[in-house]
């Protein structure tokens, strides 16, 4: 859900944890990554202006679009740009990322009119310097105290083009672990890079939102034909995988529609495709008992277990009960019956050396 993504970016990082990092991945078959990016940018900006978010400022590192396009975007979405110098700063890596203009300029310094929200950056290849510049700008925006700022990187693809994967990954992880950064988000075009670079960026980010074509087909060939015959230029699907703190992954899917006014999200209309497949072959039945079950089991009174529970054990053995026979010193020799008054069998033992209990009903001993 784009809403939940915005919300998690807005809430930012907790103390002592890494900042949430969003990577928006798109591809040629559905090139709407920038729409999603700008949507999130606008949302986050409005949250910052309204004061609802953890971050107090935003630094935009613009590599693939000119900085004026961002201000135009914000103006179009009625975000208060007047006070923008207090909360936004755009690092312009678009006009001259490698510093060529400085080298070719012969005479005269045609400085750009100093724009308070803009500062130009000339050495994109030096990622360490980029990191420090971002941090300085951000600190300039929010001050030295505990307040935080968020960072938007317009195109991680551009950054990967200029420098190696390790340096970009280290930049991302350094940004995430910086004390004053509340969240990061960036755009990536997945078909421009190798698998490993994509995997590395996904590894370092906590939320991955991939913009997929509307009909996600299994057969590769079929999708190409279908896509070229009916290019779906307005709709698509946003699949979000967010890593939760407890280690689970939340997978959500949403449809979006791009129109002239922007992008709008809607929940998925039809259940498409299979959910969990590949069920577990070797799942056993649970033979363990839970704690409640153990406690219950221990409470079950088994047949002979209530012996000796306080009451004297009553065993009808035809002669006397065990306690009475224990009290006597002389062993019982003959059979003697208790008077009870009702009709009973009076039995006199034949001989003394008969086994005492042999002629008794063994079930008389039962004390269930």
């Amino acid at each position: 859900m784009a809403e939940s993504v915005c919300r998690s970016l807005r809430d930012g990082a907790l103390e002592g944890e890494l900042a949430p990092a969003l990577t928006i991945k798109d591809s040629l078959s559905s090139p709407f990554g920038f729409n999603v990016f700008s949507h999130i940018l606008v949302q986050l900006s409005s949250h910052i202006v309204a004061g609802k978010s953890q971050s107090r400022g935003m630094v935009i590192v613009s590599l693939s679009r000119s900085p004026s396009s961002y201000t135009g975007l914000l103006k179009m979405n009625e975000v208060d740009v007047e006070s923008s110098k207090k909360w936004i700063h755009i690092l312009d890596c678009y006009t001259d990322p490698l510093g060529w203009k400085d080298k070719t300029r012969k005479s005269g310094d045609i400085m750009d009119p100093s724009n308070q929200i803009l500062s130009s950056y000339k050495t994109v290849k030096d990622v360490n310097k980029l990191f420090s510049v971002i941090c300085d700008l951000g600190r300039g925006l929010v001050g030295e105290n505990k307040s935080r700022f968020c960072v938007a990187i317009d195109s991680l693809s551009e950054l990967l083009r200029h420098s190696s994967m390790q340096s970009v990954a280290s930049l991302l992880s350094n940004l995430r672990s910086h004390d004053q950064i509340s969240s990061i988000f960036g755009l990536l075009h997945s078909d421009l890079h190798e698998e490993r670079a994509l995997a590395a960026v996904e590894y370092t980010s906590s939320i991955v939102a991939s913009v997929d074509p509307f009909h996600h087909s299994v057969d590769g060939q079929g999708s190409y034909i279908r896509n070229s015959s009916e290019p779906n230029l307005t709709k698509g699907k946003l699949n979000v995988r967010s890593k939760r703190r407890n280690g689970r992954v939340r997978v959500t899917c949403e449809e979006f529609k791009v129109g002239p006014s922007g992008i709008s999200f809607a929940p998925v209309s039809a259940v498409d495709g299979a959910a969990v497949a590949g069920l577990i072959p070797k799942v056993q039945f649970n033979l363990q008992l839970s704690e409640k079950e153990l406690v219950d089991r221990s409470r079950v009174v088994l047949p002979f277990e209530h012996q000796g529970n306080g009451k004297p054990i009553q065993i009808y053995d035809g002669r006397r009960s065990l306690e009475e026979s224990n009290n006597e010193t002389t062993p019982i020799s003959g059979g003697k019956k208790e008077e009870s008054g009702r009709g009973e069998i009076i039995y006199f033992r034949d001989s003394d050396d008969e086994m005492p209990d042999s002629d008794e009903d063994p079930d008389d001993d039962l004390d269930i």
Partner: protein
Amino acid sequence: MKDQKEVILFWLAASKSFDKKLLATRTGIHRKKKTYLKHPYFCLLGEPEPIPLSQVTTHKRPPLPIPTQSPLLSPSHLLPHSPVTAEHNGSQRRSFPSPACRHRWLLCLVPAPSVSAESACLCFLAVLSSVSASLAVAVVDGASALLAPSLLAGGLPLQPQPVAVFLLLLLQCGMATTRTRVSSFSHNVSSLKSSQHPGLKNGPNGTTFVSSGISDLDKILGGGFSLGSLVMIMEDAEAPHHMLLLRNFMSQGLLHRQPLLYASPSKDPRAFLGTLPSPGSSKDDTSHKPSHEKDLRIAWQYKKYFGEPQLNINTNNGGHHDYCNDLDLRKPLERHFFTSNNVDCVSIQNSPNLDALKDRCAEFLAQFSRNEGSISSAGRIAIQSFCSPQCKYSDMEWHMLSFIRSLKGMARSSNVVVVVTFPPSLLSPSCSKRLQHMADTLLSVRAIPDEDKELAKLLTGYQDMVGLLNVHKVARLNTQVPVILDATTFSIKLQKRRFLVFECLNQAPVDGSGGSSYGNSGVCSTSTKAGPLDF
């Protein structure tokens, strides 16, 4: 090439009982215990009195062709594509039994069961066989591995480098040091000294276990992690469960006062020590393990005549004396455990290659080298996220592989357990496969989707599960009998959000009312699609 020096390549790998003076006596090799012969892939070549190959047991490989006419097995038999010429073969055979021959060579190969080690050994054999003066001496022994190149440089007419490299690779192939045993079939560890350290436990075949910190994992692995083994944990890019395993491992070591070396790609690894768990309080223990009733409850009608049964006295007398503690993940470990000198932290983020880490590991491991005596102390090494993308060396795959290889070799001859976690999705498939093969014990953790109704229907206890643990390989040192577990997938749960528990996956009761659920469970045996739970 007639080199006067008679140089013998000898590998003191298989048995520590090999005496160094064996080198002096040519025939001494036979009087010593033949335990090394039981090791797989053992070939004794070029010996004055040959040991028939029938005594050699091979485990995985098909039986080597035994030449009937000559007891010497020339290396060409082993090499599938060796460019050995016939006359060269003949010259070796000629040179073999005559005691006057100066070009005697003795080669004992004990590679570890890992694919690349074999190829390295075969390459080495190719080198040797192509050299007419087949002379090589190396007393290759774990601790004195450095002797080899220096000796070689003096002895061989060859360039020392390639052969030295091969020798180093050979010695890193894992040397299983066995204790002196009468026969190889003794299963009971007869010389059982009850271990004087609570943190160590004697295992089968002369190995010693240390606890992993999680009692369920110890049970699954049959006792714990063996000393001298390399444990690799494959991470999932989407879940931090490997940190839970590492935390318990490190904390257990610190509780038993075992020195620890921790390396991680973050800037400040010491900060991680603050998140290590502490043993849970004892009053939790009784409710935690209610099922340990010693006697069965028998309803016996004559029980009353025998008086009260004795109460089981709980021998759990405090956390520090247990082999494995219940670690409470919410309670941080007391500082005095890791402010002492036995914890060393290394950050591998900024180092351009792994040499610095290798040196630190080597000096750490040197404190624990194994000798014949009893184990005085054990150590632990934990390397977290070994190839994470922010490290500068993360695309130097062969460099990383050789680092792990050398670490494994150094660890094998010392009383240390090494735990390395790595994310396999960030490596090329061949590199990750190689790393997996190098492991002695291989575990992997996986994330599970959140609020997945299908999974919740299928498994009991889904709400408590945080992930899945797969056990791919369990280390068995000094034996070739593998461990076959009846269940390899376990669910990771946090009991009461504190204690890490692994449980077997249990199927939820099938809902009788819904007819479709049976259809789903019918897919159990034939997993058609590779889903997230494909085992």
